[in-house]
């Protein structure tokens, strides 16, 4: 047997999206030995799919904007379930994180004065999203990628981490991974580990997420003793493509609505005026005329209801379709063609134009799009300290979508890209601090060989089950029972069925060799997909109310008492997907009076 490849680092970062790369920059600038490990190629992470922009109260378009307004919008969007301190740090620091991207070569769209242009988005009181047309995520990822290269950070590409390693004292020790091209295993010892693995959408049938979003970081952190919270809060983006079926779920940017697009049902009605919740009535237009004035001048009218937070819009679309006012393919219409010139649409929304033309044969400058909700983002994730992004496992940090708290129960569009930068940087700083104080690590060989054996098991198993079949059944189950609208009996059934899927996964088998074998790779993704699915279903069952990304048909209102708690999930350290997950309510940290006052003023 050849010797296993091994590397020794101060800080390793799992995931090469915006948060992971931003963390790596910070740790590397401290002169530490840093590596990024990604299961895809560098520059392909899901961040690249972000379209509309990065929210930051720079005040370039509306000088009235400032961090306090952004903070208030974020908390209200999250239905006050946010970690207030994270929302505050995010609102205060995002402008600097955007300017920093310019220092590294990013080219944002400009205002007439030559400043960074900002666009309107749902839930943001002012035009606040720094953007590059509708491909802002690509700009962010390329800028960070080029920064990573210029700093000479080690990058392990197409290298999938299967488990985190821990020391006897419970602190993190590193990770075990395999190279996808060769199937060879590799171990990393690390004084600190930053998890930046993104989301979980691939456990649902209709999702805007890529194959990578299998919840690896959520699951690995839980198995290693970290806590998860708000796993029930999943954002269904209101506008995903619905036709053709093969592209169902692909994202249609909120920028379409920010730039003047409106939602209509099959009767041609702008139905969103019928769905304005009391919380948002004071600042939402009452007529189409008023809403249309707002686009040109925010002082001339109130916001169009199409730009309510995403949870509100997604639920409304769902209701319209259920009431029989949907399109032939089960969505509603998103119309910008009748409202803006073809030239404007092609300039502001080039990739949407391209996407619909190529994939659906629809010219969005002439026809309305058919859209419907798609599983897009998980607000829940690893429970972290606001200042440092530290989990409860010493040396283990989490940033970006895999962490929880920042967005409460519902994320505002544009707050993700800025979240990645603000908390990626904070995680990188804190991980570097921790690593500097820590003695070298030696790995527990029994732990390593056990995890490798688990990962290889599907290859040796004969006549087991096809991993694609299990994935398919999981996606159907989560879509049907833990979808946009949930209820008690369906959630109980989901948890029972997930137990069955766990048993089936024990018997999964993969044919072929270890080299670039997608069947085997999927078999090694299934444990994390199951763990996050169970966590989500458990949380959805326990949170008996409707709030943001958790909508219960049997508990349609928000419960003020449940608005004061997080549902926190735990496993014993070293557990895996087969072990039980506990869940319990824990009180939310209370906001200081000076911040509370911001919400009083607004009333």
């Amino acid at each position, binding site marked *: 047997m050849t010797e296993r490849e091994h590397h020794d680092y101060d800080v390793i970062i799992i995931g090469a999206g915006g948060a992971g790369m931003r963390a790596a920059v910070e740790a590397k600038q401290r002169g530490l030995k840093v590596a990024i490990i990604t299961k895809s190629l560098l520059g392909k992470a899901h961040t690249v799919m972000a379209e509309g922009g990065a929210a930051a109260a720079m005040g370039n378009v509306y000088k009235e904007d400032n961090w306090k307004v952004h903070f208030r919008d974020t908390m209200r969007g999250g239905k006050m379930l946010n970690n207030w301190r994270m929302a505050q740090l995010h609102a205060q620091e995002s402008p600097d994180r955007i300017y920093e991207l310019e220092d590294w070569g990013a080219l944002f769209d400009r205002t007439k004065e030559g400043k960074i242009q900002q666009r309107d988005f749902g839930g943001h009181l002012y035009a606040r999203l720094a953007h590059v047309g509708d491909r802002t995520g690509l700009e962010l990822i390329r800028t960070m990628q080029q920064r990573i290269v210029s700093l000479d950070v080690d990058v392990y590409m197409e290298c999938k981490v299967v488990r985190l390693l821990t020391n006897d004292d419970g602190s993190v020790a590193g990770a075990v991974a395999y190279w996808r091209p060769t199937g060879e295993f590799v171990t990393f010892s690390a004084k600190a580990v930053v998890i930046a693995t993104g989301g979980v959408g691939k456990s649902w049938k209709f999702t805007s997420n890529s194959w990578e979003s299998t919840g690896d970081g959520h699951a690995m952190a839980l198995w290693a003793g970290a806590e998860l919270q708000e796993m029930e809060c999943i954002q269904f983006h209101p506008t995903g493509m619905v036709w053709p*079926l093969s592209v169902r779920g692909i994202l249609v940017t909120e920028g379409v609505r920010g730039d003047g697009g409106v939602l209509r049902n099959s009767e041609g009605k702008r139905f969103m005026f019928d769905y304005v919740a009391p919380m948002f009535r004071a600042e939402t237009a009452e007529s189409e005329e008023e809403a249309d004035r707002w686009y040109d001048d925010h002082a001339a009218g109130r916001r169009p209801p199409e730009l309510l937070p995403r949870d509100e819009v997604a639920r409304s679309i769902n209701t319209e379709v259920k009431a029989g006012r949907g399109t032939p393919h089960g969505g509603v219409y998103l119309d910008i063609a009748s409202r803006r010139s073809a030239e404007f649409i092609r300039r502001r929304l080039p990739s949407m134009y391209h996407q619909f033309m190529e994939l659906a044969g629809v010219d969005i400058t002439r026809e309305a799009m058919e859209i419907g909700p798609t599983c897009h983002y998980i607000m829940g994730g690893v429970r972290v300290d606001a200042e440092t992004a530290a989990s409860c496992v010493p040396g283990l940090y989490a940033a970006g979508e895999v962490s929880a708290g920042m967005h409460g129960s519902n994320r505002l569009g544009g707050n993700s890209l800025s979240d990645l930068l603000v908390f990626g940087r904070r995680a990188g700083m804190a991980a570097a601090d921790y690593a500097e104080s820590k003695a070298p690590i030696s790995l527990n060989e029994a732990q390593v060989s056990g995890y490798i054996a688990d990962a290889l098991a599907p290859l040796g198993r004969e006549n087991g089950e096809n991993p*694609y079949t299990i994935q398919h059944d999981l996606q159907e189950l989560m879509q049907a029972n833990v979808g946009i609208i949930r209820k008690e009996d369906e959630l109980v059934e989901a948890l029972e069925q997930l137990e069955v899927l766990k048993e089936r996964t024990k018997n999964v088998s993969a044919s072929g060799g270890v080299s670039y074998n*997608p069947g085997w790779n999927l078999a090694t993704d299934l444990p994390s997909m199951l763990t996050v699915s169970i966590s989500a279903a458990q949380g959805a069952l326990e949170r008996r109310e409707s709030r943001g990304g958790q909508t219960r048909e049997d508990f349609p209102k928000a419960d003020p008492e449940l608005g004061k708690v997080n549902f926190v999930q735990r496993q014993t350290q070293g557990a895996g997907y087969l072990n039980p997950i506990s869940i319990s309510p824990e009180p939310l940290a209370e906001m200081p009076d000076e911040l509370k006052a911001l919400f009083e003023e607004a009333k």
Partner: protein
Amino acid sequence: MTEITMRVWRGDQNGGAFENYVMPKVEGEVVLDVIHRIQATTAPDLAVRWNCKAGKCGSCSAEINGKPRLLCMTRVDSLPDGETVTVTPMRAFPVIRDLATDVSFNFEMARKVPAFNPIPRPADGYRMQQIDVERGQEFRKCIECFMCQDVCHVIRDHEENKLKYAGPRFFIRYAELEMHPLDTNDRRELVREKMGLGMCNITKCCTEVCPEHIKITDNAIIPLKERVVDADFDPVAWLGRKILRRTKRTSEEAAVQPD
């Protein structure tokens, strides 16, 4: 036709062969959907690289009927009806397995690009006009699918040229930096001497395959060639730069990555 015959290359660096898969046709599908159905039913170990399935990440580049295409953006009904669809890996890069190729050449070339190095940020931030950023923005649309590299005849059948030729993807990167309103590094000599700009004889194959419709040849390579020539021979351009105080660094300085 209710069925589609897919002829897919299977193998690794030691060789391989075509395998035929007959699949039912489904309305609106792209070629990647059919590959996925083959994986899920008959060949779970069929290797293909993909991520977003929306034409945004540039992972699923391969060759369909001999032409570089994104598998996720090629609709089956755009191909000749009733004819077998042949899918092969990109030819310019070594095969890992089946349709997945080793594109590390491109990541090595990326490391050789001297980094962006801006003028100091003024106290009230950088000011740039939209018209000035748009030139660079066109090149920053690149999704790094590397199909322009694959189709470029300088390296497609000439492995030996890879040592001295950056390829269209990186020519647009150099052009972007050259045209960046804030950058101070001068990479023109490097592009001419070490990156093989002169080997490109502007046949525009790269422009034709670009899924982002970047005018690689007209907007990047030709202007870059002109600027490189200016740097060498044109005293007026030299004087112009002096007068305009365009303080680009020399290629030797530029070759050093900043902190």
